[in-house]
């Protein structure tokens, strides 16, 4: 009960103090908000890219183009060896005619093009979808190397390069966000600690009096710590609001206009929103501890 009462007192004092110097506090909340927004934006982009990568890897496909005029016996041998490989989920053999039909169905306007060439330009192929758990770049590389030199295989095509590029991009965005976010978080800590220090200076007399009539150090410091955490938490809320607004803008006005990614719904992970607010509070906590550590209180 006494602990609860002390906490209630800290919060009450902190709120009063926040309101009393609302201009300077708005400044520090804004600084934290912008910093966390930048960090959050990078993380959001990273997790959206990551979702795209995951979706793509879910249907990783490897296509083996077969040599022209291949003996059915050799093709059947290749098929049965492929079926035995643990990475293979499904196997479909596409005849030259089937490939041509597919092309005509997909590209309606160009359907007469193969006729102009007088001969069906499409080779026979075997399409493999890769099993869950075998979709890592390493595993796919292993699979492809095992079969690319097999008799009858002319060429292998797969999405690995793109997956690798995207994975690298995700890492890059995340790393960049981390570094930038870290720098900005330090700036926020610096801002909060200075704002709190100003408040402590302005109220030094009062704090001395409290100590003289028997208040403990923790009791005198409590309101400032809560104040810092409130500043940080409010900064976090500002950042989440900015992110949410920004994402809505991007999703509605930019992506809807371009058919390209229209179906890929842009999202902000809920955990990220909570993490940003909690992160803000942590930044505020560190900031006020730094300023109190240097003060006489």
């Amino acid at each position: 009960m006494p602990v609860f009462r002390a906490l209630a007192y800290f919060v009450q004092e902190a709120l009063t103090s926040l309101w009393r110097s609302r201009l300077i506090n708005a400044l520090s909340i804004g600084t934290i908000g912008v910093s966390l927004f930048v960090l959050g934006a990078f993380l959001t982009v990273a997790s959206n890219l990551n979702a795209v990568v995951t979706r793509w890897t879910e249907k990783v496909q490897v296509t083996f183009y077969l040599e022209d005029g291949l003996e059915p016996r050799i093709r059947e041998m290749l098929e049965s060896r492929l079926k035995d490989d643990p990475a293979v989920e499904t196997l479909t053999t596409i005849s030259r005619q089937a490939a041509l039909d597919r092309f005509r169905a997909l590209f309606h306007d160009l359907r007469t093009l193969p006729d102009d060439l007088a001969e069906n330009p499409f080779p026979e192929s075997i399409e493999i979808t890769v099993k869950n758990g075998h979709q890592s770049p390493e595993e796919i590389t292993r699979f492809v190397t095992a079969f690319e030199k097999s008799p009858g295989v002319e060429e292998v095509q797969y999405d690995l390069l793109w997956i690798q590029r995207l994975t690298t991009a995700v890492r890059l965005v995340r790393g960049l966000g981390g570094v930038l976010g870290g720098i900005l978080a330090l700036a926020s800590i610096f801002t909060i600690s200075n704002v709190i220090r100003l408040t402590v200076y302005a109220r030094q007399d009062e704090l001395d009096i409290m100590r003289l009539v028997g208040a403990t150090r923790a009791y005198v410091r409590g309101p400032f710590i809560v104040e810092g955490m409130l500043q940080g938490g409010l900064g976090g809320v500002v950042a989440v609001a900015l992110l949410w607004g920004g994402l809505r803008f991007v999703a509605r006005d930019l992506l809807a206009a371009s058919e390209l990614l229209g179906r890929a719904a842009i999202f902000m992970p809920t955990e990220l929103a909570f993490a940003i607010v909690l992160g803000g509070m942590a930044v505020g906590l560190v900031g006020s501890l730094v300023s109190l550590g240097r003060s006489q209180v």
Partner: protein
Amino acid sequence: MIQAFHVYKQYDRESVALSDITLHVEKGEFCFLTGPSGAGKTTFLKLVFREELPSQGQILVGGRNVTAIPEAQIPELRRSIGVVFQDFKLLKRKTILENVAFVLRILAVPHKEQKRRAFNALKAVGLHHKMHAYPMQLSGGEQQRVAIARALINEPMLLLADEPTGNLDPGMAQEIMTLFQEVNARGTTVLVATHDREMIQRMGKRVITIQRGRVNE
């Protein structure tokens, strides 16, 4: 209650505020500490509730050596001592009711009881009708009475009062002295620093005189 042994206090190199002070104040006693301005009265009181540390010597308060207690135990010491500061030391952003209640607040006394007891303490110094005023809205004498109410609210084992009647007219000064006598009768040891000779004579209590930092009993 207070035992000082060969206490010295030097704030800076040029001057000595207290020099070889040895004195005792018994439990339950009411006594005056007097001497001209600058004699070291305030300094001595500061040493008792550990606002300052002596440069040399030991001070025991209620049997505890306050010159040796760890930092963490200072709040506990101060809570057992009521202090009327010469410059009042009121929290200017809080009403006088809140100022008086603050002492109970840090002890986590329930809110209603804080209010009730703070109101009664203000009533005892005749200021309950101004309880929602802020210190700056009061006269010096009124602020002094608030400081007195705060010092007394928790029935301390020891009351230290530094020129508590300095800003009061004779009638009010006498009322405050009567209040101190009542508190003393309930068991609180009282030490009043003052240079008001007339009042000291009227009260007929033990007097400790310091002059230029030395006891002159």
